[in-house]
């Protein structure tokens, strides 16, 4: 009998699942039938013209650095606003490049003049940021959120934008993408966070930017500019030289950056997805990007534990990385400590990172693409059905709320 029970138990485990099927209430065109003219929408509809064989080869060999040439056309409200602009196209991403829809990096032959917002026109641009010139941009599949909502990264980034925190980030718009007039999918058009993107964001030349990345597992990659400055900064962290660090870091930006990332429980940070940069001799600032792992796990952690003991999977052992080390060094300074603690409390009390604001952003992004999601879901089976997409959107909101509740429960916070 025991053997039978165990057998029965394992059969149940194997079968235990949920399967959704659905009919749609309205008539939708198949993705095979839609044309660019189907989409009379305010956000971009992009058609990339490429040699199909080259595109297919790049798509099949996505792990290789294959770049192909193409012509970019962009439509807004059924009006063509970009005509056959010469671009280089490359597949981007690591884990997310394994998905059936892959992120594309698009680089202009000449810097694109976006003063009138033809290419990228987010509702709000911060006064210290510029999108007037764009050298490159990305058509993003929403990263690891591709199988869930398609709007997670864009929503969290818009929260960073609307919060009023002293942050730098990439800018987004939803977009419908065609390749050679065939529907490719719903993607996110995003400004780049690399040296090109940061130089355009600050409206300075590329050679004025010093930029470094931190990649998994906490390894620093010096990308461009004055490498000696980066070395000195890392050495100062190692030597716990607080005064040097305070002189060379934009402390307000660093504090807000730490608060935002720990508040949204981004478990793919800070041993990964970190970019810091300086314009000429100015202080280093930090860029917020790739937030697709936010609020997936560890939503119960205290913000300090989150920064000091960062991991995605392991419950205890944090991954050593320069940002955690930097924070630990600065937190020994009473002035920094007090500034950080007070700022955290002020931000929590001000509700700028509240679920109320987040839900408004999510609803707006949901409403922008909901009419076209059946096409996308028909083409890519990853999400499954429209009802499952609705559930995933609800889960996105629920996860945010859970983290918010957990932080509010911690009393006193510091």
């Amino acid at each position: 009998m025991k053997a039978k029970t165990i057998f029965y138990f394992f059969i149940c485990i194997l079968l235990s699942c949920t399967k959704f099927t659905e009919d749609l209430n309205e008539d939708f065109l198949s993705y095979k039938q839609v044309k660019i003219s189907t989409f009379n929408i305010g956000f971009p509809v992009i058609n990339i013209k490429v040699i199909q064989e080259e595109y297919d080869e790049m798509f099949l060999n996505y792990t290789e650095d294959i770049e192909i040439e193409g012509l970019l056309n962009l439509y807004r409200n059924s009006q063509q606003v970009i005509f056959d602009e010469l671009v280089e196209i490359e597949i981007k991403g690591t884990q997310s490049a394994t998905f059936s829809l892959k992120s594309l990096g698009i680089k202009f032959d000449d810097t694109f003049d976006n003063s009138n917002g033809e290419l990228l026109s987010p509702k709000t641009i911060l006064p210290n940021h510029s999108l007037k010139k764009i050298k490159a941009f990305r058509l993003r599949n929403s990263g690891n959120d591709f199988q869930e909502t398609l709007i997670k990264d864009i929503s969290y980034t818009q929260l960073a934008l609307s919060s009023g925190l002293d942050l730098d980030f990439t800018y987004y718009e939803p977009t419908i993408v065609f390749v050679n007039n065939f529907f490719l999918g719903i993607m996110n058009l995003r400004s780049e966070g690399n040296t090109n993107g940061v130089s355009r964001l600050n409206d300075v030349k590329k050679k004025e930017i010093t930029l470094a990345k931190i990649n998994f597992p906490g390894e620093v990659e010096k990308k461009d500019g004055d490498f000696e400055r980066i070395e000195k900064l890392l050495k100062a962290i190692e030597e716990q030289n607080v005064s040097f660090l305070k002189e060379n870091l934009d402390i307000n930006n660093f504090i807000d950056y730490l608060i935002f990332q720990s508040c949204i429980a981004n478990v793919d940070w800070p041993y990964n997805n970190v970019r810091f940069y300086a314009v000429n001799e100015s202080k280093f600032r930090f860029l917020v990007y790739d937030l697709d792992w936010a609020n997936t796990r560890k939503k119960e952690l205290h913000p300090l534990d989150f920064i000091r003991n960062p991991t995605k999977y392991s419950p205890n052992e944090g991954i050593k990385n320069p940002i955690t080390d930097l924070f630990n060094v600065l937190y020994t300074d009473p002035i920094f400590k007090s500034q950080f603690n007070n700022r955290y409390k002020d931000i929590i009390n001000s509700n700028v990172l509240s679920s109320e604001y987040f839900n408004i952003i999510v609803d707006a992004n949901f409403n922008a693409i909901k009419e076209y999601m059946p096409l996308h879901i028909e083409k890519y089976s990853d999400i499954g059905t429209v009802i499952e997409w609705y559930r995933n959107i609800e889960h996105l909101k629920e996860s945010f709320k859970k983290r918010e509740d957990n932080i509010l429960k911690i009393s006193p916070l510091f």
Partner: protein
Amino acid sequence: MKKIIFIFISFLIIQKSYSQKNTSIEVFSGVGFNKDLTLINESVNNYHLSTFQLNANYRIKITKGFFTETGIGAQWYLSSGTIGVSKFNATTLRIKIPILVGRILFKKASFAAGIAILNNRDFDKFDFRADYNLRTTLLIKGNYTLTNNFDVLLLIQKNLSDIPDLYLLNQPELDVSVGISYKLF
């Protein structure tokens, strides 16, 4: 709460009882109910849910008139409804481990109450650091003995966990089932 459940289960497993025990197979059919469900600010309409259960049940007589029950079960939920542009059907299978304490009321009837632990997520989406992996339900169960081997059963199951609406769409807040059990030995 977790410790109490653990101790209770351990007690049931390790006890060397010479009292009366029996094992039975139960089959249930029923309907599920939810409060008004909303997803993405829209109400779920035309919502219907039916459920089927197949349980292996183990009853142990504790003292005269009292018994405990445990076992393992599989519960299917078949739900349908409309929301937004979607007219959906969902099929969900869950594993259930019930623990009940009961009292024999008359010669042929008994009543039991307890809890059950079910998986709330599919096992392929299980993540031990994530929320809402499991749910706990309140069980109220009535038995009426028809013959030596057959009982008719009434089972009411009410969710006790704080679960968002998105998980109630395919696995309801409350379900009421009737069934029969067959004593194996």
